[in-house]
């Protein structure tokens, strides 16, 4: 009984880490530009495709493939910011949100047109093989363990970056008040571009970690929609919140899929988010929002 619960929780944590990575992307962009990036899931999909190309089609080792996908996606993210987001800088939030929805459409369409990618479904091989670990009667696959470990490592790196690096502090300043950041000599537009690059790189990382569990195909980005609840539960503007939210959503989903009747697995995340929005609109780690006239 307990081992079963533990098993489900572990699976939920592994899945939740992927949600957390996508939610991290949302939060980074939201913090900097007050925009929600609906294309985050599609960036993840594109990252997974780059990883797939490097590892399966070019025959590169797994780590090189991750590095390749992360670097290429960082460039793609910066390109997107430069071309479509910068012209609407300073316009109402929903305008920018609609642009990211448009970007999502374009990315999904472009992927189906690239020769060798198309509308097929691919599996991404990992070097972890079929190794499993036994913990108190529960089984944890090496892939899942790797997902958890890599997510934790990435979160630590991001924490250090935002806390100590000059650029990280500049990004925080930009997110709090653009005008004041300009006055302080921060190149706000360039910082925004770097944030988009960072978010896209994190998304690529998430895509590759997700690939063994969910396969790579042009619509895998829709899993990003599960990351919205994760980001909201954690409080939209909070980096640790995104991780905690992702884990909560992952665990709730795994448990609901087993203990509750059919149909609750796919909606559990949304029921949780509605409850959180009604009871605690700013999320667990959210900052208080009160508009002044």
């Amino acid at each position, binding site marked *: 009984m307990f081992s079963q619960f533990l098993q489900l929780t572990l699976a939920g944590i592994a899945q939740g880490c992927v949600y957390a990575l996508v939610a991290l992307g949302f939060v980074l962009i939201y913090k900097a*530009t*007050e925009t*929600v990036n609906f294309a985050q899931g599609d960036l993840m999909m594109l990252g997974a495709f780059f990883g797939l190309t490097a590892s399966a089609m070019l025959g590169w080792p797994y780590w090189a493939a991750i590095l390749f996908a992360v670097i290429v996606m960082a460039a793609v993210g910066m390109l997107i910011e430069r071309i*479509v987001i910068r*012209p*609407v*800088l*300073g*316009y109402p*939030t*929903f*305008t920018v*949100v*609609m*642009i990211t929805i*448009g*970007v999502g*459409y*374009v*990315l*999904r*369409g*472009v*992927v*189906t*047109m690239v*020769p060798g990618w198309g*509308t097929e479904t691919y599996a991404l091989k990992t070097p972890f093989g079929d190794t499993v670990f036994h913990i108190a009667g529960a089984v944890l696959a090496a892939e899942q363990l790797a997902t958890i470990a890599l997510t934790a490592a990435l979160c630590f790196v991001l924490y250090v970056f935002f806390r100590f690096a000059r650029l990280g502090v500049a990004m925080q300043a930009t*997110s*709090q*008040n*653009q*005008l004041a950041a*300009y006055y302080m000599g921060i190149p706000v537009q360039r910082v925004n571009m770097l944030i988009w690059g960072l978010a896209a790189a994190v998304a690529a990382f998430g895509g590759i970690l997700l690939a063994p569990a969910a396969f790579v195909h*042009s619509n895998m980005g829709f899993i990003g*929609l599960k990351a*919205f*609840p994760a980001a*909201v539960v954690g409080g*939209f*503007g909070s980096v640790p919140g995104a991780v905690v939210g992702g884990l909560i959503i992952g665990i709730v989903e795994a448990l609901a899929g087993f203990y509750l009747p*059919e*149909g609750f697995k*796919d*909606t559990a995340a*949304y*029921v949780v*988010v*509605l409850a959180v*929005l*009604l009871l605690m*609109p700013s999320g667990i780690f*959210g*900052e*208080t*929002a*009160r*508009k*002044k*006239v």
Partner: protein
Amino acid sequence: MRFIFKTDYDQDIRLFQHGGQVFWYGLLGVLLLIAPLVVSGYVLSQLHFICIYAIVGLGLMLLVGYTGQISLGHAAFLATGAYTEALLQAAGMPFIVSLVSAALFSAAVGIIVGLPALRLKGIYLAIATFAFNVIVEEIITRWESVTGGSSGKPLRAIDIFGLRLASPESFYYLCLALTVLSCLALINLLRSPTGRAFVAIRDSEVSASCMGINLARYKTMSFALSAALTGIGGALYAHKVGFISPEQFTLIQSIELVTIVIIGGAGSLHGAVFGAAFLILLPQGISRAKDWLPDAVPQTGLQSVVFGLILIGFIIFEPYGIYGRWLKIRTWFDVFPFYRRGTFRRQRSYLRSERLR
């Protein structure tokens, strides 16, 4: 350039401001009325869809374009209307009753969804409505005894007082009549105090409430009216398609409905109709263009790229949508040769976070 000198208070409440409008809208009306006699069955079928989506677009325009509340869950209201219609028709209710019930039931659901809107703003509201959409879709799929689950639900032709509207022409006139009625209703609503209150809420909630507008009441009302119109659209949609299933009411559908408002032009009723026409005609245009392209390009992929690019293009270059573009062209001719580039310039502002005090 036309100057309207108002010499009578009646001129303020007249539907048409001047003779030009009477002429052009009259011409449009005549063209729409004789359309079934001239166009082919295929074009008529597209006109059905344009009318239906125009009604939904009007509903969404009221909420997004005029009240400033974002909804990514309107497919759920569409589904509510469609399923209410299907169930009541199966129960033997006359069309008038089932259509009104579809609108009322959707409005009731709209009020329930509107309640969280009182506490949520902007993007949080969008996410709440979108969560609601997913949940409704799942309920429809799982509640098989009522909705038929994934196997869907068929509908018969409409029956009004023993008059069967089986032919495409009669259905077209029904859709057209409902579209015109919805337009007139919204035109009148928007120049009433209620409509002004909606616009005030859109422009600034703080100043609206300072002017004595009850935010909770008007936001809920806007949600209910918008949902009711969408429900009517859903009922017609169900009859048009003849078969409804949960896959027709996904989040993707909701997003496409919002693009009606954005591409048509937020904050104008014309925009809702233009946007609906655009949304229906785009796939047709692409499948035409497909003949010129190599076979390797898939239809769905191409459609999604073109759709995305047009959406991005409109937001960057023409934020007021198709209607905004039309307005600029008209002004250009009106004031020729004195049109200036800055006439319609948007105001930019620096972003100040609302998260921190």
